[in-house]
C-alpha cells in the first residue's frame, strides 16, 4: 500500500518494506503545453556525509556522471522533454551498497539552461517523486510537489537517509534560485 507524503513528511522505508534493498526513484513532471522551448528538467543525486556535503565530486550523480564510485547509485538517462506517461527520469539506488560514511542521498531536479530560456519551476506542473522497490515493482512512497514554486530553478525533491540503523525517505520540496550550479555548490561540489 503506497503512502503519499506531504511536504516535510518522512517514512521509514525499512518498516514499510522490510525486504527493500534495491530501490528506484522515479521523478516526473508535465511537458510544456504552450508553444516555445520545452522544459528540459534534469534529475540528479548527491551522496552526502553527516555534514551535508559530498566527499568528492564523484558523489554527484547526474547526466554526465551516471554512476557513483561505489556503484550504489545509478542514473538511467536523460529525458529531454517530459513527454510520455509515468516517470520522466529514474535513479536507482542499492541501499546495501551505499558507503557507510554516506548519511543522506539527496534527489534533486533542475531546469536546464533556465536563465537563458526564462524558465522556472513556477511554470512546471504536476511534478512528483516516488520510490519503488526495484525487485517487486511496488510503489512504496510518493510525494506530489504541488504548485508551491515560483522563480526557483532547482528543487530538492526528496532525501533517502539513515536514521538509527534504518533507511528513511523524506519529502523535501525545497527550491533554490541559480539552477544546478547553485545546488551543486551548496553540497560542496567544486565547479
Amino acid at each position, binding site marked *: *500500500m*503506497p503512502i*503519499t507524503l506531504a511536504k516535510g513528511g518522512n517514512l521509514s522505508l525499512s518498516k514499510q518494506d522490510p525486504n527493500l534493498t534495491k530501490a528506484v526513484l522515479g521523478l516526473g513532471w508535465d511537458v*510544456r*503545453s*504552450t*508553444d*516555445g522551448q520545452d522544459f528540459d528538467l534534469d534529475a540528479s543525486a548527491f551522496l552526502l556525509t553527516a555534514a551535508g556535503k559530498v566527499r568528492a565530486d564523484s558523489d554527484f550523480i547526474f547526466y554526465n556522471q551516471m554512476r557513483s564510485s561505489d556503484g550504489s547509485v545509478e542514473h538511467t538517462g536523460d529525458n529531454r522533454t517530459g513527454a510520455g506517461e509515468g516517470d520522466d527520469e529514474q535513479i536507482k539506488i542499492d541501499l546495501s551498497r551505499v558507503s557507510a560514511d554516506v548519511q543522506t542521498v539527496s534527489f534533486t531536479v533542475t531546469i536546464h539552461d533556465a536563465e537563458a530560456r*526564462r*524558465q*522556472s*519551476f*513556477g*511554470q512546471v506542473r504536476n511534478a512528483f517523486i516516488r520510490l519503488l522497490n526495484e525487485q517487486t515493482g511496488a510503489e512504496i512512497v510518493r510525494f506530489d510537489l504541488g*504548485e*508551491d*514554486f*515560483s*522563480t526557483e530553478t532547482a528543487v530538492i525533491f526528496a532525501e533517502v537517509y539513515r536514521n538509527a540503523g534504518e533507511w528513511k525517505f523524506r519529502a523535501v520540496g525545497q527550491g533554490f534560485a541559480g539552477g544546478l550550479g547553485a545546488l551543486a555548490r551548496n553540497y560542496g561540489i567544486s565547479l
Partner: protein
Amino acid sequence: MTQLSAGEKRKLSDLGLSSPLTVTVEHGLSGLDISAFGLTAERKMVGDDYIAFYNNPRTPQGEITAQLGDAQATFSVDLGKLPANVERVMFTATHDSQAVASAPQLKVSLGSLQSGGVSFDVKSSLKAEKAAMLLELYKHSGEWRLGAVGQGFGGGLGDLIVYFGGEVEAPGVAAPAAQAAPSGPPISLKKQAQVRLDKQIAAQAPQLVSLVKQAEVSLRKRGLDEHTARVALVLDISASMSPLYRSGVVQRVAEKTLALASRFDDDGRMDVFLFGLRAHDVGEIGIEGVTGAIDNLLKKHPLEGGTMYAQAVQSLRKHYFGSAGPRNSPLRQPTPIYVIFITDGETFDKKESEAQVREASQEPIFWKFVGVGKEKFEFLQKLDDLTGRFIDNADFVQIENIDTTQGDQLYEMLLQEYDSYLENAKRQGLL
C-alpha cells in the same frame, strides 16, 4: 511598484493586494483583444458567461468587468464574489493576424485600493505567439495568488480555446469568439463541449455510453436536461464497505455517477470525497481517469475503522464554500452542487452530522444520501426529514443492490427531489 518576472508566483496578501483588484493591460496595438477567462482549478473553462471580453464585458454577477480601449484594457475583479468553481482568472491577449509581441508595449499592472501594486512586462517573454496568457489570479490552499505566465500559442485564439478545454469548429476557421458579431450572443461552448465529451466517453470509457443515455432520459423527464451543476461523489471507506469495493460495485457506482456528471457539468468531471474516521478531499475524476479509478484511490486511502458523516459534510463545505463553520446568512451562487453520498451504515457522530446538514441548508448544495444494503438507516431517514433547516436540502434513498438496479430506475432515485430542491433554492435566493 514591484516588477514580476515570467513564472513568478506570489500570494496577493504578500504583495499588499486585496480584492477588489484592478488589472490594467497597456499594449497600444490596434486589433489586440484582451480578455479575462474564468477557469476551474484545472484551467478549464466553466462556461461562456465567465469570459469577460469585448462581446461580454461583464460576468453574471459583475465579478469581472472589462473596459476595453484601443490601446489599453482595464478589468475590475471581485475575487470574493466568484462562484466556487472559478478558481483561476486568466488574462489573455489575442490577435487575428499579428504576433502579440508586436505590440509597442505589453504591460500588465495589478492594483487595489490599498496598494500601488505590481506589474509584469510580458513582451520579452513572447516570440511569435498570436494568443498569449499574460497573468493569472488563482486560488491555492484557500488563498488567492497571482502567477506571471507569459506563454502562449502560435495558432492564436483557437489554440487557446482548446487549451482551456473548449472546441473550435474546424481547423482554419477562426475561433468562435473572434468571429462573433458585436451584437450577437456570447460564444456558445456548452453544446460544443458536450459533443467533445461524448467523443471522449466513446473513446476512453465506452462502458459509460449507455449510462449517459439513461441519465439523459431521467434528466429530461425532470426538465433538467439544460441544467448545470457541479457533481460530488462522497464514498464511505469504513471497513464494512470492503466487499462492495472488492467486488467492483463502488467502481460501477462511480461510473454511473460520472455518466450523470457528464450531463450536469460541461467539463465532465466530478469531485470525489472519501470518509471513514476522517474525510479526504481526493480531487477530481474525469472520463480519462474513471476506468480503475476506485482501485487507485483505495491504494492511497485504505479503508478505515469508523464512520463519521459530519467530517465528510465539513470537507465538502470547505471545498465549495471555503468554510465549514456556522453560517449566519444564506449564501448565493450561480451553480449548485449536487452530492451523491454513499454509505452502508450509520454514523458515529449523529449530533455533529445533523448540525452540519442544517448549516449547509443555507448553501446551494443538495445532498442525496444513498444507503446501500439492508441496514435500517434510521438516521439517514432523520436527516431527510430534519427540522430547523433553511430549506430542505437532503433526500435519502435506500438501494439494496445498487448493481442490479436498472439504470433508468437508479437515475430516477438519484434525481428524486433534486428538481424541487432547485426551484425552492431559487425562490429562497440560494441560486
